[in-house]
């Protein structure tokens, strides 16, 4: 079985660890616990005809990807940039951040995610998506919305 490394990046408190926990263990813990350094988890996903081991690197929250230790990015196959839809600061200068990520690995696909969609007022998800066209997926680690889809999408992008 092939293994592919995905690095999750973004500001602190955007829910990177919660997204991974929801995806790998299907649980959500409401308490915010700051990640320092890096946590690595693994989960197998099935795409149409293949099984892939996703090795997911959950990095420490940082205001800029420049703050990431370059060693963490060794052998990365895909990036997920996570924002918090309720904190505009977490998606300021997004394009600049994505460009920086591309310099580490030009071939690695990047998905941008707006997490905490459960905090948006009811019935405004569609509007929020339109207001934030730079986001690929809106997710909620809390209720699990689009989390599975996000990682499956990334797996497909990596093997395609």
């Amino acid at each position, binding site marked *: 079985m092939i293994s592919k*490394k995905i690095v999750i990046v973004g500001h*602190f408190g955007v829910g990177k660890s919660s997204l991974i926990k929801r995806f790998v263990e299907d649980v959500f813990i409401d308490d915010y616990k*700051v990640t320092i350094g*890096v946590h690595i988890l693994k989960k197998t996903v099935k795409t149409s005809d293949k099984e892939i081991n996703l090795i997911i690197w959950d990095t420490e929250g940082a205001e800029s990807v420049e703050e990431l*230790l370059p*060693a963490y990015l*060794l*052998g990365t196959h895909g990036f997920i940039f996570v924002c918090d839809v309720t*904190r*505009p600061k977490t998606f300021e200068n997004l394009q600049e951040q994505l460009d920086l990520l591309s310099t580490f690995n030009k071939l690695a696909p990047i998905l941008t995610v707006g997490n905490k969609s459960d905090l948006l007022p009811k019935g405004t998800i569609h509007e929020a998506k339109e207001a934030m066209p730079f986001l690929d997926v809106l997710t909620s680690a809390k209720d699990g919305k689009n989390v599975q889809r996000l990682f499956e999408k990334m797996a497909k992008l990596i093997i395609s």
Partner: protein
Amino acid sequence: MSISKIQTEFATQDLQFISIHASGAVIESDNKLIQFKKQDFLQQFHPFFEIISSFFEEGKKHMSFKCVYINGRIFDIDIVDNDTEKGVVILREGTAFYNRLQEIAQKRNESLVFNEVLEFKNEILKEKEEFKDRFIGNFSHELRNPLTLITAFSSMLLKSDLNVEQESLIESIVSQSHRIKEIIDDIVDLSILKRKTISLEQKQFDFYNLLEDLRINHQTRAQEKGTQLLIQCDPTVPKIMMGDERRISQVMSNLLEHALHFSEGKEVKLEILDNQRRANKISLTIQVHCVTGIIPQKFKNDNTTIPKDKNNINASNLGLSITEELLRLMDGSLSSTSNEEGHSLIQAKVKLFVPFRVSETPVAIKKVRNELKLSQKINVIIAEDYGVAQLTAVKVLVSSGNFATEVYSDPKDLLEAVQHKEYDVILMASSISQIDAIELLGMIREFGNNHNSKIPAIALSTKSKPEELKEYSKAGFKDVIKKPYTDDEVLSTIYKRLNLKKFK
């Protein structure tokens, strides 16, 4: 033990060296921190070690990974290329250190995230407030024009020859349109009060006159409902006091309105009690007894058993909300109690000042009789682009027989007219074809002929906020007639601003 041996032991205390093959298989390990057997694959122990294949594939010589979580412990990990297809993994335990660091980061980030979220929530609230204000402004504007027509025309109809039944029907229309106007004013007032953007006046006023006006204003409504209205005031309450007369009157009026609404033919009593006086400050309790008053939950202080009847939650509760906000501004409070029989008592506590020296009472301005008949017509420009409002103004003026009117809905035509003809007065709506009245008046003063640059301008406005009304006055409008208006209000205002001898 030799120093070099001690040095070696302490220097390597938290370290583990693992010799590996490029495949990740263990060749040799000192097992100081984690137990591995020969030929174990590190990748199977933890997914972090999947990095080994990338390390060798990319021909790296040495890489350091700080703060890596491995099965509940935290390590700094180095991978060193030792030989072709062989390397060494060095683990340095840092669990205690990094856990301490985590606590510090936790505190810092929690506070930063909290502030950012708070900032965002404030932004949303601000946007909502702005939307609400815009909505109330538009809603008020849209309702005032048609309401002006109803109010003015029904007032005109009342002066014509009607039979008893017709008169009673028109009176009902007048009364209800007046009520709608009050509700619109209340909604606008409440939105202003919630933002605390009004300031209170501190002027001397005759409190007993105010009570008398209140009695006259509510007597008719009480009679209509078959209710006996009583107003009692402690004899120690001073006649002249200092405060915002209009707002105090509004507080008492709202309390009475609420009580009358639920009176069901029973007695309604408004009492003013003198609580205490210190120096020139006086504390009053204004209380209204109401037989079957439904008190909105937010004003209740007791555990009353009166059911909350949703059908009865209406405009009078809006009045109570305004009263509460007004009292808050006046450093007062609103409370209520009720019993099982449905008798309720609503109390407003308010602080006022008693002046050390009473100033002279202003002379009442004589009202101009609107039945006035002039031999020469007053030439009026009506600048208004809203059909219903044009019709209302024209009808009101023409039916008095004293006016020649010209209506303009295009600012260009209006400016041309004021250049070439002479008029006596201008009536102008808040805006005409997107041009604000204040701006337009400036243009009339600038481009109009000498005569027209001096004639009085009166605004017919749907705006009602005090700051907006001040703007009109600053711009040179002599008066502002708030929509909806009655025929009498328009005629009195115009007559007041003209030298009528010229037209007699």
